[in-house]
């Protein structure tokens, strides 16, 4: 099996699993307990918190453990909204292609009377800073813009966004689920006030994540309960998950340069080779993107059938077609960068990891064109394009 859906989730690394094992077996004490078993768990919890803080250049008391990226996004946005409301500031700025954990939270707030400006991401999938600056008003309480996009991998100018927000005294949250462990994140240097991350995107376990919130930001609880996470998130801590996440993040940060160099080489090989398929087009900026992200549209075919046939060929991939998203419309990300519906249905996302080899990429480069050609041969859309009855878009 060739696994190229690492933006979906990643393989748990051996080192993360090894770090977790004691806490899944003999070290099961509750970190809130006074006995020594509980205190050993507590120690592991706080060591993990320190390690993760170091990776982000934050301080340990700014790290809140959550169930993952979605929860962190929800809590960050709802907290900023509540803080804003106290000062009668009910305007939020975001982008058109955020993750649904952000978009759906914003929709909820809109129903409660908040105003949200969704910045354009243009054809290359990157916001314009002057759009941001001119969208900020006296009422703006939050800017939430993702660090790197989960579908097309484009990276936003996070530091510049952070600086603009700081200049205007507006809180800045970034959904960095795809970025942490893959590109350098430094919350101080990049002027980030709140950040969401998820362990399973960098070879850690599922079901665990972090909300970083700068000291002084009062979080709104989503889960009431005990005094865990400084009273901001009730529930017995998932020590094994937290320890595994810390180990995976330390590894990812340590290996970052080397891994991203290898991924970039393989990604560019994919872009170059599969870009030779007639009437195809890369989605998102070719350079300002995650080193592991390839996303391309192929005209005249539909993504789900492409994925099923690639799966038959042993390749795990992903697509932004409506059929795979389980909704009527194709990916909102592809629509946001201006792809028409009919083209957006025919997208293919391949996301690499440190485990991806050149042999695997060579096999994919051989297989994808075969499958695209096969599907085009039975496609009435392709037939019309080829016979000149319709104009090619790509």
């Amino acid at each position: 099996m060739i696994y190229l859906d690492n933006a979906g989730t990643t393989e748990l690394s051996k080192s993360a699993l090894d770090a977790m094992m004691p806490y899944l077996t003999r070290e099961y004490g509750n970190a809130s307990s006074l006995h020594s078993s509980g205190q050993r768990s507590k120690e592991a919890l706080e060591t993990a918190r320190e390690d993760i803080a170091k990776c982000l250049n934050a301080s340990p008391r700014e790290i809140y453990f959550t169930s993952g990226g979605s929860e962190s996004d929800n809590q960050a946005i709802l907290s900023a909204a509540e803080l804003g409301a106290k000062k009668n500031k009910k305007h939020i700025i975001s982008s058109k292609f955020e993750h649904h954990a952000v978009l759906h939270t914003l929709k909820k707030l809109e129903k409660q009377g908040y105003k949200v400006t969704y910045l354009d991401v243009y054809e290359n999938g990157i916001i314009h800073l002057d759009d941001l600056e001119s969208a900020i008003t006296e009422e703006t309480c939050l800017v939430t813009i993702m660090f790197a996009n989960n579908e097309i991998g484009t990276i936003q100018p996070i530091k510049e966004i952070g600086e603009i927000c700081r200049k205007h005294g507006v809180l800045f949250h970034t959904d960095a689920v795809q970025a942490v462990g893959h590109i350098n994140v430094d919350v101080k240097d990049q002027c980030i006030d709140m950040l969401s991350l998820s362990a399973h995107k960098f070879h850690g376990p599922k079901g665990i994540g972090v909300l970083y919130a700068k000291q002084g930001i009062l979080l709104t609880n989503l889960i009431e309960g005990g005094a865990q996470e400084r009273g901001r998130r009730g529930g017995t801590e998932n020590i094994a998950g937290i320890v595994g996440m810390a180990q995976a993040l330390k590894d990812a940060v340590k290996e970052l340069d080397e891994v991203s160099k290898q991924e970039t080489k393989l990604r560019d090989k994919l872009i170059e080779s599969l870009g030779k398929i007639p009437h195809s087009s890369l989605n998102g900026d070719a350079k300002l993107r995650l080193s592991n992200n390839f996303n391309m549209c192929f005209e005249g075919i539909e993504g789900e059938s492409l994925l099923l046939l690639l799966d038959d060929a042993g390749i795990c991939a992903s697509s932004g077609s409506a059929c795979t998203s389980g909704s009527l419309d194709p990916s909102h990300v592809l629509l946001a960068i201006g792809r028409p519906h009919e083209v957006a249905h025919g997208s293919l996302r391949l996301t690499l990891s440190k485990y991806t080899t050149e042999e695997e990429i060579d096999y994919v480069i051989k297989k994808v064109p075969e499958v695209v050609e096969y599907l085009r041969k039975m496609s009435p859309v392709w037939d019309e394009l080829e016979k000149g009855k319709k104009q090619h878009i790509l």
Partner: protein
Amino acid sequence: MLYSEKVMDHFRNPRNVGEMEDADGIGEVGNAKCGDIMRMYIKVKDNIITDVKFMTFGCGSAIATSSIATEMIKGKPINEALELSNKAVVEALGGLPAHKIHCSVLAEEAVKAAVKDYYEKHNIDYDKSLYCVGDCPCAHEHDHIEEE
């Protein structure tokens, strides 16, 4: 698994796929915007559908439903082909996931559209009430999603 073995078989080995140069009737339904288009070709002799071919742009179940629909009407009298229901297509495939039922609707409509084209090309009178007007598949899909 998302699909039954029968669906995957028809998806992987579609029957009667391809273009038909000398078709007596051609029906095309669906909308590229929605992500599904089916085109069905029929050859008719003495009121019998002697040959069928299809071309489909769409997901796995769109390809599978068109494939099995061609098998179900090939060699049948036209009036029997017109009785092909989306339900029969779903049953023949051993079921479809709820959000894929619209593909079977599309297959039923593609058959009807091909017959309609045959009637019109050959100046044969037919019961116009059998046909919905315009592009229904998206509408059907919308209805369906709302039901869920």
